[in-house]
């Protein structure tokens, strides 16, 4: 939907704001650069992710929820496109590490997670939680940057929920997770078949979405031809020729397909050097620090270090700020804030109804617990796991789908 009269006030006040913003972003870059070897890279990754999420308003929660709520799949189709791109890119990287899957080993940096009752329970809780809170974990991060007070409340819930899960993790580990298989499709059927099956599942999902969309009558509006007024020959100078593209990038909202595809490309680029994107491990660390402050220690989490980037013990050492994912998560918030500021749509958004804060908080707890259980959120255990050719990604996705269905039933009652 194009906006009729976009307001971009190119005045001194706006220019000063943008200049100040750039100075701030660059300053943090140099601070990060001095603090550790790769921190500044993660600062840039976080900023890019936040920027992309804000511009495209990409929301995994609405991707699932809107299928039920309005029989609309625009967002989910975008997510499918992103998954398709990432499947190809991730496979290129993984097949470089393991040209011949030997049936046992899995790429240690890929998001290949255990498949079991915890994946399903985690996905269900997460699915309900994200719909209740109106956004998933990454969604809450970027909405925090856009000025939504409810998302800050959701984040508190996420930290608490995740903290509670960590207290009970060792029980879950004994109960099920330690015996759950780390099923990596190339080990079972080889790369070609794994890619073929993954892409086919995306196609089936796409067809199912179209089926859902056509289940409701659609009014096709008559085409309205706009009469262009004031057509006159105008000389544009060199700078003015950049306005259309700048407006497209910085002012108009991007479509979900563009947003998810760019996010997938960022994910592939990050994976070429580090591990795929994931935001929950860092939130776990925040919870552990806050818990320590209140005198509740987080136990040593059994087995967790075997999953990429998740070793909490290791993360609890050294300078609190000198961690890659600290810069990434805060980068997402700041990146989204920057995107909103540039588009002149930042605003403190304070909900007037108390119930929204309650549902955001409870939804956050559900997401925090669920993400801990499934060892990842819609990014780590879904958007990075399916492209890692992990079975866990699909099981988690299906559980999210069911959870979102339950969530949609609940929220329509909370008007």
């Amino acid at each position: 939907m194009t906006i009729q009269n976009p307001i971009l006030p190119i005045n001194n006040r706006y220019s000063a704001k943008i200049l100040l913003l750039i100075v701030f972003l660059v300053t943090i870059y140099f601070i990060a650069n001095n603090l550790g070897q790769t921190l500044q890279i993660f600062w840039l990754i976080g900023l890019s992710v936040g920027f992309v999420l804000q511009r495209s308003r990409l929301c995994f929660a609405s991707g699932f929820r809107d299928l039920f709520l309005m029989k609309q799949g625009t967002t989910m189709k975008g997510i499918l496109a992103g998954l398709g791109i990432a499947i190809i890119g991730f496979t290129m990287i993984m097949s470089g590490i393991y040209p011949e899957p030997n049936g046992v080993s899995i790429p240690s940096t890929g998001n290949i997670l255990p498949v079991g009752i915890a994946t399903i329970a985690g996905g269900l809780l997460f699915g309900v939680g994200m719909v209740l809170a109106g956004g998933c974990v990454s969604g809450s991060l970027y909405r925090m940057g856009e000025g939504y007070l409810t998302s800050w409340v959701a984040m508190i819930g996420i930290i608490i929920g995740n903290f509670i899960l960590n207290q009970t993790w060792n029980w879950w580990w004994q109960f099920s997770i330690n015996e759950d298989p780390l099923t990596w499709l190339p080990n079972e059927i080889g790369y070609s078949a794994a890619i073929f099956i993954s892409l086919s599942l995306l196609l089936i999902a796409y067809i199912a979405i179209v089926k859902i969309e056509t289940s409701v009558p659609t009014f096709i509006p008559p085409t309205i031809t706009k009469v262009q007024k004031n057509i006159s020959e105008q000389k544009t100078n060199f700078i003015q020729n950049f306005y259309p593209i700048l407006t497209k990038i910085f002012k108009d909202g991007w479509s979900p397909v563009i947003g998810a595809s760019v996010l997938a490309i960022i994910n592939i680029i990050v994976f070429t050097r580090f591990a795929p994107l994931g935001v929950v491990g860092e939130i776990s660390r925040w919870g552990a620090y806050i818990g320590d402050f209140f005198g509740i220690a987080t136990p040593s989490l059994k087995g967790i270090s075997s999953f990429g980037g998740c070793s909490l013990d290791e993360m609890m050492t050294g300078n609190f700020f000198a961690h890659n994912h600290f810069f990434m998560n805060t980068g997402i918030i700041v990146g989204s804030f920057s995107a909103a500021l540039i588009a002149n749509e930042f605003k403190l958004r304070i909900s007037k109804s108390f119930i929204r804060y309650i549902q955001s908080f409870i939804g956050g707890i559900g997401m925090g617990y669920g993400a801990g259980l499934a060892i990842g959120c819609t990014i780590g255990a879904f958007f990075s796991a399916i492209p890692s050719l992990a079975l866990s990604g699909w099981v988690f996705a299906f559980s999210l789908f069911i959870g979102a269905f339950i969530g949609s039933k609940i929220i329509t009652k909370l008007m």
Partner: protein
Amino acid sequence: MSTKHTLDVRGEICPYPMIKTNKFLDNKKNHFESIEVITDHPPALSTIPPEAIKRGFACEVNESAAGEWTILLTKI
């Protein structure tokens, strides 16, 4: 005679701006030719118009202030 209504959903989070608009449009008791929805929720700009079009309305989105938009829905 045309009657103009305003629906202020500022401060509401996803998916309530859209649900509330749909509810208004679907309510047979409401007699109106056009309705102006005021929102500060960017995703609503991509969820409300398709839903309104489905129901037979033309949409026009205007930016009314920083981070605020009015969506004018008119019966076709």
